[in-house]
C-alpha cells in the first residue's frame, strides 16, 4: 500500500490530544501538528515519506511535517506498522535526522508502555552517501532493521557522537565536572578521534572555541527550556578534503519566544524587548506575515537580552552572541566557491532563523551592544528580512533546535604523529 503523506491527515480544528502517561517529549511533537488529525484511524500501516531535502536548516516545513506525522501515529488506534521511506532523500542534515530518530524512539516506548504491538520498517535512500549517513546516525538501529545493520568493519569507519541529558546525572558538587562539561569533553574527544585517523588534531584555539560555542548552547538549553531534555549530536565527515562537521543540539520544552511571553509585561526582560516588538507590530510587520514570536525570537538573539535578566545590573544575554560569532568565524575561514558553505539555523516554535553569513552580528557604535538585525543596514528599527527570519505558520517545534554545518579547515588543525 502506498499511502501519501496527505492521506494520513485531514485538516480539522481540533485541540491536540494529550495522552496522560505518554512522554512529554512525544506530546510536544504531537502538539506541533495542531489542527491536523489523522484522516483515518483504520490505517494499519503508518507510512511516512521523508522529503527530498530533509533538513532543519533548509526545509523546516518538510522536517516538521515529517516528525509530527510520525508522532501522530501514537494517536492512531489501529496502526501497527511504522514505515519510513527515505528512498527519495537527496540531501539531509544531522539535526533533522536525529530528531526523527528521537521521535521514533519515543513512539516505540509509547507503544511498549501501552503493550501495543509496533512493527518498524523502512526504505533506505538510493543515494549511497546518505544511506551511509543514516546508518551511522542510528535510525536504522532505532527501527531495528537488522538486515541493514553495518558490519563491524563498516561500523568502525563511521563515527557519530551523541549524548543526552539525564536529570539523574546532575551533580550537586561543583568541584567536579558536571554532566554538561563531561558531554563537551566527550564531544571534543570524538572529534579528535575522527581527526587522528588522518594524523590531525584540533589546535588549542579551535578546541577552546568549539567548547565555548557548544557550552553556550547547552547552557541556554538547560536554563531556558524548562525541561531537562537536551541532546547534542555531532558528526565529522573526514572522507573529503574539507572535513565538514555537523552539530545538532536540540531540547524540548519552552520555546525562545515563550520564555519571554511567560514573563509579566512589566518585568525588566519584557520591557527590554517590547519597544522592538511593538515598534514593528505597530508598523504592520505582523500583518505582513510575521508573528510576534518571530520578533521576540530575533530580539532574544541580541546582545545583553535574556529572559533571565531582572535588573540593569544583570549580565545575561551573551550566549547567542557567542553562538553567532562562532558561526561568523567559520564563514570567514572558508572561501565559498559555489559549493557547500557553512550554514546554521535556529528553529524554535514557529520561527525559523537561517544563517549563511549574509547578515553579521556587530557591535553598535553608540551602545556597544552586539546587534544582528537581519537586514542590510543592521538596524533594529527596520524589520528583519523575511527570507532569513521566517514564520512557519501552523507548523511548530515545541522546543529549540540549533543545527550548524561548518568546515574544519587547516587553520584549525595541527599535524600529529600517530605512527
Amino acid at each position, binding site marked *: 500500500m502506498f499511502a501519501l503523506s496527505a492521506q494520513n491527515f485531514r485538516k480539522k480544528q481540533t485541540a491536540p490530544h494529550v495522552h496522560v502517561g505518554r512522554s512529554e517529549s512525544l506530546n510536544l511533537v504531537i502538539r506541533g501538528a495542531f489542527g491536523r488529525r489523522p484522516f483515518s484511524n483504520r490505517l494499519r500501516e503508518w507510512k511516512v515519506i521523508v522529503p527530498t531535502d530533509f533538513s532543519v536548516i533548509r526545509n523546516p516545513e518538510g522536517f516538521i511535517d515529517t516528525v509530527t506525522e510520525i508522532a501522530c501515529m501514537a494517536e492512531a488506534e489501529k496502526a501497527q506498522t511504522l514505515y519510513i521511506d527515505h528512498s527519495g532523500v537527496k540531501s539531509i542534515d544531522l539535526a533533522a535526522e536525529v530528531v526523527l530518530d528521537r521521535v521514533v524512539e519515543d513512539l516505540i516506548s509509547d507503544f511498549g508502555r501501552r503493550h501495543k504491538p509496533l512493527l518498524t520498517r523502512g526504505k533506505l535512500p538510493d543515494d549511497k552517501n546518505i544511506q551511509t549517513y543514516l546508518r551511522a546516525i542510528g535510525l536504522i538501529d532505532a527501527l531495528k532493521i537488522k538486515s541493514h545493520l553495518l558490519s563491524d568493519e563498516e561500523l568502525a569507519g563511521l563515527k557519530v557522537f551523541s549524548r543526552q541529558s539525564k536529570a539523574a546525572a546532575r551533580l550537586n558538587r561543583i*568541584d567536579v*565536572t558536571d554532566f554538561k*562539561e563531561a558531554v563537551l569533553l566527550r564531544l571534543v574527544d570524538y572529534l579528535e578521534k575522527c581527526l587522528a585517523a588522518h594524523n590531525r588534531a584540533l589546535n588549542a584555539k579551535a578546541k577552546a572555541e568549539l567548547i565555548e560555542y557548544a557550552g553556550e548552547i547547552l547552557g541556554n538549553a538547560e536554563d531556558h527550556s524548562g525541561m531537562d531534555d537536551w541532546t547534542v549530536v555531532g558528526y565529522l565527515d573526514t572522507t573529503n578534503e574539507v572535513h565538514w562537521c555537523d552539530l545538532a543540539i536540540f531540547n524540548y520544552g519552552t520555546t525562545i519566544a515563550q520564555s519571554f511571553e511567560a514573563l509579566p509585561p512589566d518585568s525588566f526582560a519584557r520591557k527590554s524587548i517590547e519597544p522592538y516588538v*511593538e515598534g514593528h507590530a505597530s508598523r504592520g510587520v505582523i500583518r505582513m506575515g510575521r508573528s510576534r514570536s518571530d520578533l521576540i525570537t530575533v530580539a532574544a538573539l541580541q546582545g545583553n537580552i535574556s529572559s533571565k535578566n531582572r535588573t540593569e545590573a*544583570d549580565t545575561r544575554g551573551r550566549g547567542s552572541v*557567542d553562538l553567532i560569532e562562532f558561526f561568523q568565524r567559520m564563514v570567514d575561514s572558508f572561501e565559498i566557491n559555489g559549493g557547500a558553505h557553512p550554514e546554521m539555523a535556529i528553529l524554535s516554535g514557529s520561527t525559523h532563523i537561517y544563517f549563511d553569513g549574509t547578515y553579521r552580528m556587530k557591535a553598535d557604535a553608540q*551602545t556597544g551592544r*552586539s546587534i544582528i538585525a537581519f537586514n542590510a543596514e543592521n538596524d533594529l528599527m527596520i524589520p528583519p528580512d523575511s527570507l532569513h527570519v521566517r514564520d512557519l505558520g501552523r507548523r511548530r517545534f515545541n522546543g529549540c533546535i540549533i543545527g550548524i554545518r561548518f568546515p574544519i579547515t587547516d587553520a584549525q588543525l595541527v599535524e600529529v604523529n600517530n605512527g
Partner: protein
Amino acid sequence: MAEVSSVKLRDFGGPIYVGRPKGEAARKLLGLDSLEKSCGRISVVVPSDAYAINSSFLLGMIGPAIKRAGNRDAFFSLYAFEASPEQYDAFLTAALEDAVSHALVENKPLPGKRRR
C-alpha cells in the same frame, strides 16, 4: 598595602569551565563579593591543564565585579588572571574581552516604539 588574595579555579573542576551557574556558584563559594571589597587585588589561578573557559562562566563569576568597576582599567586593576601565554592566546584573552565588553554595555531596552 592592600591585601592580595588568590583563588584557584582547580577547586571547581576542569579542564573546562562553562556555564553561568557554575561561575555564579564559584563566586558564592569563594566569597568574591566580600573579597572584592576587602582586597586590593584578586589573583585567579587558571590550572595549567585548563583549555577552555567560556564567557558565561566568567560572567557568572566576575560579572558583578565588572559592572561595579564600571570600566576595563578599574576591573583589571582589581582582578588578575594567572595563566600561561598559550592559554591566554588559545582562550583566555578572548573570553575575558568578551565578558568585560559585554558586562560594560548598559542594559537598556532595544530601540523601537515605546508604549504610551
